């Protein structure tokens, strides 16, 4: 177990430098010990113990675990101390950026270091796992039922849109349409932009309906009933 810390500005700079070195071909282990000390990180209060040795088969399980260990801590506190998410990324770096034949494929920084930007904050692999699970519980599975290093199309299409991701009934409606209960995974073809009623179409239709209806006050049934019947039939019935 390890005490949760909050990466400071020098820590974030050092972490960014590490990512850059890996991008350029270096083969270093993540600097956990170095960045677990001041001035690179500071103590986070209240004290929280996290298990750095845990292996998460999916981001959903990561989100579930984080919601358990951070339970009772004010949301404001967790979001104001953005460095905790970067520190957790560092602890679980081998999961959020696994090695493949000795090489790591580093994606954009926003996946590992919290971006303050409204256009890519939701790309942070750890923060987003906690936040989506805390907002939507089991219905976050469409976004999070993937390995910890994957930022999937569900997140890109739905979580990036404020009016959609904040609407609990709408996210539950998306789960009703696209989650395969038998297979316990998203239905095949739901993100295929050539299929009628795919998730991109859901987003477009909802954004149009949002101009006319008070979608935030609607139930799941009401939202589903607003969808064009023919286009979404296969997702409703399957």
């Amino acid at each position, binding site marked *: 177990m390890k005490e949760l810390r909050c990466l400071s500005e020098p820590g974030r700079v050092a972490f960014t430098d590490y990512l850059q070195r890996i991008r350029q071909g270096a083969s270093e282990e993540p600097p956990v010990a170095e960045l677990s000390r001041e001035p690179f990180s500071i103590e986070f209060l209240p004290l929280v113990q996290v298990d750095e040795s845990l292996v998460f088969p999916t981001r959903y399980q990561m989100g579930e675990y984080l919601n358990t260990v951070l339970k009772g801590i004010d949301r404001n506190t967790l979001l104001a101390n953005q460095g905790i998410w970067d520190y957790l990324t560092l602890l679980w770096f081998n999961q959020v950026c696994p090695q493949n034949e000795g090489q790591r494929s580093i994606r954009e920084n926003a996946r590992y270091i919290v971006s303050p930007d409204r256009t890519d904050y939701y790309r942070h692999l750890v923060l987003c796992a906690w936040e989506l699970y805390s907002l939507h519980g089991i219905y976050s599975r469409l976004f999070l039922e993937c390995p910890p290093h994957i930022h999937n199309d569900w997140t890109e299409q739905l979580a990036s849109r404020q009016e959609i991701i904040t609407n609990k009934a709408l996210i539950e409606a998306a789960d009703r349409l696209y989650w395969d209960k038998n297979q316990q995974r998203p239905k095949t073809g739901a993100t295929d932009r050539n299929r009628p009623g795919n998730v991109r179409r859901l987003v477009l239709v909802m954004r149009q309906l949002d101009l006319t209806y008070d979608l935030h006050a*609607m139930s799941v049934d009401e939202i589903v009933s607003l969808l064009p019947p023919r286009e979404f039939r296969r997702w409703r019935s399957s």
Partner: protein
Amino acid sequence: MKRRLNFTDRKRIPLERISLTLREEDGRRAFDAKLDLNDLGLPEQASVYMEAYYKTDYMRYPFGTVAQFRRPLSTNLGSLGRIDNLRFRIKVVDESGTRGLIKAVADRIRPVTPTGVRAILPVEFRDLGSQIWRLSFDGGEPFLEFNSAIPFIRDRAKADYRLFFYVYPAVLREILVQMIIVNGIPDPEDVEEWEKDWLDFARHYGGEAPEVLDSQDNTFDEVGVRKWIETVVTEFCTAHRDKWNGFIQLEEKET
């Protein structure tokens, strides 16, 4: 040119009828709201809601009906994780049918802060590679981004004279060019809140704007508009002469 479809006769609540102010309540942020919905032709029994939002944060507050505007017991924003750059949406909803129909709306409303300021240019800090700053437009609204890798950039963005003159005149120019020449403003009386704010800001420095601000209009005078924009920028800089003096002193020290 922007096209707005409105099949349901949804009305826009004029900004001058809205007042939103942040304040402290039990050590946490809350807000006060005043709203004038008279004579907008809205159903008296329609419900009024205010929604505070930013990123994944969202809270909804019932404010009674059109006929009986009533503040809820609490307008505490404490459960929201991100208070900075918070926006508000006001909805008037006809709930007499089976589905709530939006009869009027105002969106992206920026509240006045407890210090009495209503910022018109949200600032964010992010990794911009080798760029110092960048202007981006989110749903049309301008955001200024500074490179978070620059030392002490948060403080410098507010108080550094050099940054002020290197960045803000260019920002002002770019916003006005984007608003008027790229997007076009067909009707200055029917604009988004951010456009109104920037037009008011520009008029404050540059005087009355050219009559036609719609770049798609045949009578649009681009040369005249660019000239007015330059006047706005020049007067903006002149109005900050105290900062300019500080800027010159800094330059002299270093040379």
